[in-house]
């Protein structure tokens, strides 16, 4: 693969994973951020940690693991992302990678944090997702869940369904929403799948909102309206259809983020939307900045808005 990559031309190496994307975006907006996880004692691990630190993210709880219990050497996971036309997906091999264990999830890692971001990829590690949500809510964190992948939805819906009652905001893409609707409502029609997915999630406990991202077409925001499964639905389209809402290319600065949350009725709904799959959305006329950040980070907001 190394040889093929060289033949393919220039490539770049970046910290991957939705968690690091969320934190980098949030940090750009002036939020204080921390990553909890594990890496290997190798070049990729160093690059990962340094990049996060350079972005202003606390890596105090990014553990460095050299060997597992059996003495086998551990490494930092690497994922090759091959793309064209901004379409890509990827999978990483976890066999010998350093990882955080469920037993290492402690309350003090999350205490006094406003938001806890979790991805359904945690389902790959038995008991991880439920423990994360339990520990986070136990110390008062609000929970932001990214469904991760349609395969995760298909394979681990039993685990995911159990935590919706503790989730504040859930984000998923088209494939994940469609898979969710097929599983829970028997909906095969793509046109109705997103509404049904949101209705089911809100009806089963998601507290604030569900977001379905639509790639270059923007996203749909479903905000809870009342106690049951009723919602207010708004479509946030891409400003410029020639420019994809999502791009895997590094975006110089995060000033373009925020379009998808700029018209949200509730600031709370929007606080983290910029940090997940909407983080590279292009802005409209002005940058929307969460109110909980502007109260403390107005300087940062002004700088970003220029």
């Amino acid at each position, binding site marked *: 693969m190394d040889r093929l990559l060289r033949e393919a031309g220039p490539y770049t190496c970046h910290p991957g994973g939705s968690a690091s994307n969320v934190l980098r975006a949030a940090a750009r907006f002036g939020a204080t951020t921390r990553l909890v996880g594990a890496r290997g004692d190798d070049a990729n691990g160093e690059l990962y940690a340094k990049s996060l630190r350079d972005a202003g993210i606390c890596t105090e709880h990014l553990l460095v693991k050299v060997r597992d219990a059996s003495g086998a050497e551990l490494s930092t996971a690497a994922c090759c992302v091959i793309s064209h036309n901004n379409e890509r997906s990827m999978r990483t091999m976890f066999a010998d990678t350093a990882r955080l264990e469920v037993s290492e999830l402690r309350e003090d890692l999350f205490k006094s944090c406003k938001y806890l971001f979790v991805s359904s990829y945690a389902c790959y590690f038995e008991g991880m997702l439920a423990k994360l949500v339990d520990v986070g809510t136990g110390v008062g964190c609000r929970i932001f869940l990214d469904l991760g992948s349609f*395969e995760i939805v298909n394979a681990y819906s039993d685990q995911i369904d159990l935590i919706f009652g503790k989730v504040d905001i859930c984000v998923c893409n088209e494939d994940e929403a469609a898979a969710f609707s097929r599983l829970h409502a028997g909906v095969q029609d793509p046109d109705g799948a997103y509404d049904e997915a949101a209705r089911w999630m809100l009806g089963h406990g998601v507290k604030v909102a569900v977001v379905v991202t639509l790639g270059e077409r923007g996203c749909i925001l479903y905000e809870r309206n009342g106690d049951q499964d009723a919602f207010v639905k708004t479509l946030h389209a891409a400003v410029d259809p020639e420019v994809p809402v999502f791009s895997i290319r590094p975006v110089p600065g995060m000033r373009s983020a925020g379009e998808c949350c700029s018209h949200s009725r509730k600031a709370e709904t929007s606080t983290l939307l910029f940090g997940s799959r909407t983080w590279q959305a292009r802005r409209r006329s002005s940058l929307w900045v969460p109110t909980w950040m502007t109260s403390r980070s107005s300087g940062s907001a002004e700088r970003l808005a220029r």
Partner: protein
Amino acid sequence: MDPTTPSFLGKKFLMDVVAVQATAICDLHVTLPDAKHATELLRRAALGGDVALGGSRRVTKQARHCGLVCDPPTVRSLASRAPFPSRKWIAY
């Protein structure tokens, strides 16, 4: 709980956002000019045993268009097992 309630706003927070990534991951990004180049690279990697190729509906369609066989059941089978046992890279 309404996020604007005093009980939420009144709390003292030392950190705004904490995110958990059980395994740190470095992404090697390769952007190619079209689907044919991308799938050719994957095909050659697959022949070398480094890559198991699968894809979303769009990616699969593109790969098939370029003559690359994508076997969804195989991919689903791989996806159902974690960690993946033998491949160094799994592009998807």
